[in-house]
């Protein structure tokens, strides 16, 4: 595991780093279980969540968030494009990249645009994966070309998503 390029990381980064070191030796499940035990870092994690979810389907977002939280991640959800962009740009620019789960059809600004603006303003700050109703090649190609790690067509299987999140966040 190579994390040395992170010169001065914040508290959340440290926690995540520790957790990820842990995960390299033991299974993801162990890491998940280990996390809630220590209440102090958990609160720190909450201040800068592991996963940012942008989807206007608040019910679905709620269920995904519950699933990821049970699996030991902290999650923050946004339900509109512009709101999400402002919040994301306001996040600290240092520390570990965070996972952004993005829907394509969003009020105010579509997911592609949001993704591309973020990539310009904060290159490589976010690991981006799309969750979308749209199944066309055009959408998938655009998302992947702009740097998304995956494009999941809805309906999304939450157990599968959790495992994918595990691998995305322990990669690098």
């Amino acid at each position, binding site marked *: 595991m190579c994390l040395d390029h992170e010169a001065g990381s914040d508290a959340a980064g440290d926690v995540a780093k520790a957790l990820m070191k842990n995960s390299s030796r033991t299974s993801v499940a162990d890491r998940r279980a280990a996390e809630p035990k220590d209440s102090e870092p958990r609160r720190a994690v909450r201040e800068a969540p592991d996963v940012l979810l942008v989807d206007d389907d608040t019910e679905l977002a709620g269920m995904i968030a*519950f699933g990821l939280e049970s699996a030991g991640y902290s999650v923050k959800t946004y339900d509109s494009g512009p709101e999400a962009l402002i919040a994301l740009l306001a996040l600290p620019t240092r520390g570990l990249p965070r996972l952004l789960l993005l829907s394509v059809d969003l009020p105010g600004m579509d997911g592609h645009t949001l993704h591309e603006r973020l990539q310009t303003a904060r290159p490589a700050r976010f690991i981006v994966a799309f969750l979308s109703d749209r199944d066309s090649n055009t959408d998938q190609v655009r998302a992947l070309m702009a740097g998304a790690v995956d494009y999941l067509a*809805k*309906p999304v299987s939450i157990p599968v998503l959790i495992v994918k999140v595990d691998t995305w966040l322990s990669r690098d």
Partner: protein
Amino acid sequence: MINTVALVVVGSFQAVFIVATLVLLIAAHRHGRREGAADEAAVDALRGPVRALMLGEDHGESLAATLAQLDHVVATRRLLSIAVSQLAPEQLRDLAARVRPAAWVERTLAGGASRRWWKRMEAARLLAVVNSPADLPLLARLLTDPHPAVASAATGAIAGHADAALIEAIIRGLSEQPTAVRLQQMRALRTHADVATRILVAQLDAGGRADQVRALVQLAETLGTPGALAATVPFASHGDAEVRATVARALRLCFMPAGVEAARRLLADTDWRVRAAAARALGGLSAVDAIPDLRAAMRDEWWWVRFRAALALGALGEDGASALAAATSSDDEFARDMAVVVRDLPESARLELST
């Protein structure tokens, strides 16, 4: 004594039948050859146009034109074969819009009113590729066709129509369909998850016979939408054990506090199948709070409940693992044996067995 003349008469009939069968055999052989050759010629002629469409050189104009020159049976067969291969959804939509007005399409679709089920099936299969809003009444009829192969083939066309009345009719008919068709239709409804969820929730609220409720709960599991899954939770206390087992199964996708709570309750159900499914759901939901319940379930009298409970503990991180380790020295020999079996299973096997 049977006389020779009678035998000769029987023999003559035989000779006639033998000659007739030989003629049939030769005719069938020739016909088969001709059909094979026509098919091959069609495949050759279509190769270029299919390539053009796949590579985005055109939007299916040349393919539609080539298909139009073929016999309607051959054209139908070829289009179906092209459609199931690697065309992207939007390419398929382009192509469908282009071929829909062709005479051969009309001819095959007209078979949808035929008395012969295989003609209706051909129409249903074609409809799955070319369907337009005007075909809605035909589709509605074919989806409820008494022949399962027709209803199954028509399923492919559901994706093209976000029509609430059609979706409601499908959902109402689910419990009457044979299993394979029901599963197919449920999966097809995932493309209209929003509309289907709304209708499903209304139907669940209205209740119904046990088999109807089961079909609806299965649909909720297939759709996987929060609304649909939440609506199944009240049925965890349904009087029919099969319904409860179906709910317990669906709960493994129900990532919300009420879902976890219901699964914990079902772990104490009177029916072992329900308990087994509930144990599995708790593992899938990463329900760490349910560890004490799962430890108790390790003493269940049924092998499958103990197995599912042990696997679930194995999926619940460190706390689960230590609960499983504790069970290896349990005073209940069945719990002990099961804990050892699951503890010693490789990770890959656990995964394989718990999904």
